[in-house]
């Protein structure tokens, strides 16, 4: 019984340690994917900043906050990958609605193609039995 408890304790400690080591990697990955995620969110519809945040907040493992999202939206607008339309709001100042420009659509297609290629390579390596046993 005590051995079982000790083993469980050691498993939990290892899991905790693994999570600590993985957290910075997850954070970096999320940052790297942020631009792609925003472009995908705006692919089919015009949204204002808070709506983009709500779309992305619903996705597992991709929770983002306003301090990372809004600077990216401002940069995408400065790079003319998204266009901005101001619309008055009863709740306060005019809302800034974002939509993809032609350049934004092109950038999104390039990024998606690269992402699919990288993802396929990782999947191939991870499921390759030869690679897994070596």
């Amino acid at each position, binding site marked *: 019984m005590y051995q079982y408890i000790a083993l469980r304790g050691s498993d939990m400690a290892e899991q905790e340690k693994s999570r600590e080591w993985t957290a910075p990697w997850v954070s970096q990955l999320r940052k790297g994917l942020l631009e792609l995620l925003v472009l995908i969110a705006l692919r089919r519809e015009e949204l204002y*900043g*808070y709506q983009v945040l709500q779309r992305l907040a619903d996705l597992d493992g991709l929770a983002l906050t306003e301090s990372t999202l809004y*600077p990216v939206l*401002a940069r995408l607008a400065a790079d003319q990958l998204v266009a901005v339309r101001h619309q008055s*709001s009863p709740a306060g100042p*005019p809302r800034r609605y974002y939509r993809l420009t032609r350049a934004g659509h092109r950038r999104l297609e390039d990024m998606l193609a690269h992402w699919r290629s990288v993802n396929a390579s990782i999947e191939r390596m991870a499921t390759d039995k030869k690679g897994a046993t070596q």
Partner: protein
Amino acid sequence: MTVSLSADAQSRLDAHLDAVEQTLHRSGNARDQRRAIVDDLETHIRDLLAARAAEPSLADVEAVLAQMDPPAAYGAPAPTNAPKPIAPATTTPSATSIALYLFLACASFAALFALVLGAIWAIRRFG
């Protein structure tokens, strides 16, 4: 629904937005980008306030701001696609290399000293 804030609630909201704007300024964000970010943020906050009450109080503003990232979270360097300059490599001598240099210097000095003594002895003996 039109949202109107009391003077103290408006003042608290303005203070938060100003703090974010100052952090963005210190982080090197251009003026139009700072304005865009702060406008998006204000829209966000006002949407949350509108969901709470038609006339949000200071307590409502405090509660909403407590859910938001603090102004310091906007302190990351301005996002850019430009590659970062490569810093020149700096080399600091380690303790091991300093010890090695000292040892070699002492050994060289001792060898030179022995050579001089040997030469003096040879001159006296054979000269």
